[in-house]
């Protein structure tokens, strides 16, 4: 693992999401009210560019810097897991106005109270780890 290059990728992510206002609770609120194209534009253009990238990687059998061909692991087929888990995540995303990326970004931009948010999110993940065998997947 070369540390610096991953930190650089993170910096790029942080500056991008901050400058595009995707870290803003008000932008997420606006999105769920369908009052602006902005957030949809970010997500859709990322997906469309991403689809092109994935196709190029697959067709050229591109190799990663580790020398292995880049592969995409198909996710397990299921409905309840993704739907119920997704709904729970969506409730939190709209309530807090941040998803995990912006959580780190805002912490870095000086909103230290996000340390509490991070602790709560870790506790949420921990709780999932404890009860996952009892949940439909």
């Amino acid at each position: 693992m070369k540390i610096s290059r991953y930190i650089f990728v993170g910096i790029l992510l942080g500056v991008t999401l901050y400058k595009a206002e995707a870290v803003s609770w008000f932008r997420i609120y606006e999105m769920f009210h369908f009052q602006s194209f902005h957030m949809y534009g970010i997500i859709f253009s990322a997906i469309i560019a991403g689809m092109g990238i994935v196709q190029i990687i697959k067709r050229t059998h591109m190799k990663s810097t580790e020398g292995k061909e880049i592969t995409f692991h198909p996710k397990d087929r299921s409905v309840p897991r993704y739907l119920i888990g997704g709904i729970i995540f969506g409730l939190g995303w709209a309530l807090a106005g941040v998803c995990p990326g912006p959580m780190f970004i805002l912490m870095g931009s000086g909103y230290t109270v996000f340390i509490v948010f991070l602790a709560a999110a870790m506790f949420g993940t921990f709780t999932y780890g404890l009860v996952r065998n009892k949940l439909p997947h």
Partner: protein
Amino acid sequence: MVPDFLIQLKDFISQPWPWWVAGPMIALIMFILLFFGKEFGISANLRIMCAADGAGEFSDFFKFDWQSQGWNLMVALGAMFGGYIASHYFVGGSDVAHVSAATVESLKELGFNYKQGEVPLVPEFYSWESLFTLRGLIIIVGGGFLVGFGARYAGGCTSGHAISGLSALQLPSLIAVVGFFIGGLVMTHLVFPILF
């Protein structure tokens, strides 16, 4: 003296970024990580941090080689640096969310009386003081819990499912994203009128 072109570059970056810059940039980030043989997924860090804190004692879900995932923690650390850099050097004199006029109006119904162009990027309830109010506690602690629980249950968050998953045409990711929006719409339209 700082060369002129660097100052111009700083001013250029300091503008609010339009969606058509941010979206392809996110796709580029996904590509860089794939090129390094990794996958773009920020919420995995929550599981890694739990495992690093010894959660493996309580659940096998946290018994994995988390050290091999250290690169993802570095991405999260970089995101923190990115947030610091953007908010300290590239704010361009204003730190506002340029939301639409319609949003400014509907925010008034929740009790946010902002003029257009003056909506802050981060709401006031993100402060240590608001942890002592019921609403602040619900948003910060409750919101964090739901995000952490839901992301792992769904197997990913906005980066892992909406961006990486949909780019690779993964049906499970589409189901997850539909779930994100069902949850988000319920929260925004049904719970917010009670909460605010």
